C-alpha cells in the first residue's frame, strides 16, 4: 500500500503515525505547559503513544501475547509513577502553595 493509503486504511504506518503524533503532543504538553499536572498528563500521553506503537507492531507480527504482557507491565509502572508523582505534586503544593513548575526552581545556580 502507498503511504497515505496505508495511513488512511489502518495499515502499520497509520498506527505508527498516530503514535508518533501522540508522542509529539505529549512532549509539547510537557514543554509548553507550566502546571505540573498538565506536564504529568503529557507524560501519560507519551506512554500511551508508546503502547500504541507496541501493540501495532505486535498485531502485524502475528499477534504475540508477549506484547500484551509487556503492555500490562507498562501500565503497572505507569500506575506507580502516577501515584508517586501525584504525591510529590501534593507535597510541593503544600510547601510552596503553587503547582507552577517554574516556581519550584530553588536548585537554580
Amino acid at each position, binding site marked *: *500500500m502507498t*503511504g497515505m493509503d*496505508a*495511513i*488512511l486504511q*489502518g*495499515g*502499520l*504506518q*497509520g*498506527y*505508527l*503515525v*498516530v503514535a*508518533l*503524533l501522540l*508522542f509529539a*503532543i505529549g512532549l*509539547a*504538553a510537557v*514543554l*509548553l*505547559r*507550566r*502546571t505540573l*499536572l498538565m506536564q504529568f*498528563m503529557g507524560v*501519560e*500521553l507519551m506512554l*500511551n503513544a508508546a503502547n*500504541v506503537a507496541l*501493540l501495532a*507492531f505486535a*498485531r*502485524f*507480527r*502475528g*499477534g504475540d*501475547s508477549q506484547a*500484551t*504482557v509487556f503492555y*500490562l*507491565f507498562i*501500565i503497572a*509502572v*505507569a500506575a*506507580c*509513577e*502516577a*501515584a*508517586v508523582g*501525584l*504525591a*510529590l505534586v*501534593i507535597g510541593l503544593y503544600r510547601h510552596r502553595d*503553587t*503547582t*507552577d513548575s*517554574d*516556581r519550584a526552581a530553588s536548585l537554580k545556580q
Partner: protein
Amino acid sequence: MFITFALITLLGALGMLLQKNVIVAGLFMVAAFFGVAGLFVLLANPVAAALQVIVYTGAIMVLVLFVIMMLNSHEEEKAQSSRPVQRWVSVALVTALAFGAVKLVLASPGLKALAQSGAALPEAMTLQKVGVTLFADHLLGFEVAGLLLLAAMIGAVALTKRNL
C-alpha cells in the same frame, strides 16, 4: 473505523494541550484514552482495550482529576517571566520531531514490507492467552511488578503524610 478512532485520539490530545482549564483538559485526556482503547480493539487486542479503559481512564485519570480538584488549581497561573525563546524552541522542536518522524515512517521500506507481510488479521487476543504467558514465562516480572506497586503505595503514603 481506523480514521474515526485516530481522530478521536488526536483531537482529544490536542484539546488537552490547548485547554486553559485543567479540568477540561483532563476530560479531553479521557476522551483521548478512549480513542486509544478503540485503536486497540482494531488491533485485534480486546484485552488491551479493556485494560486501557479500566486502569488508565478508570484509575489513573480519576486520580489525576481528584488531585486537581483537591488542589483547587483550575486555572493556569501567570507566568513569572515570559520566556519566548524557550517556547519557540519547544514548538520548533516538537513540529520538527513530528514531521520528521512521520516522513521517516512513510519512507521506510522495512515498514512497508512488514505491513504487507502482516496484513492478514490475526486471531484476537484472549485473556487466557495473556494469562498463560504471564504466569508461565514472566512470573518473576509479575512478582516484581507487585513489589513495585507495593513500594509505590508506601511511597505515596509517606510522601503525603503531614508529620513524618
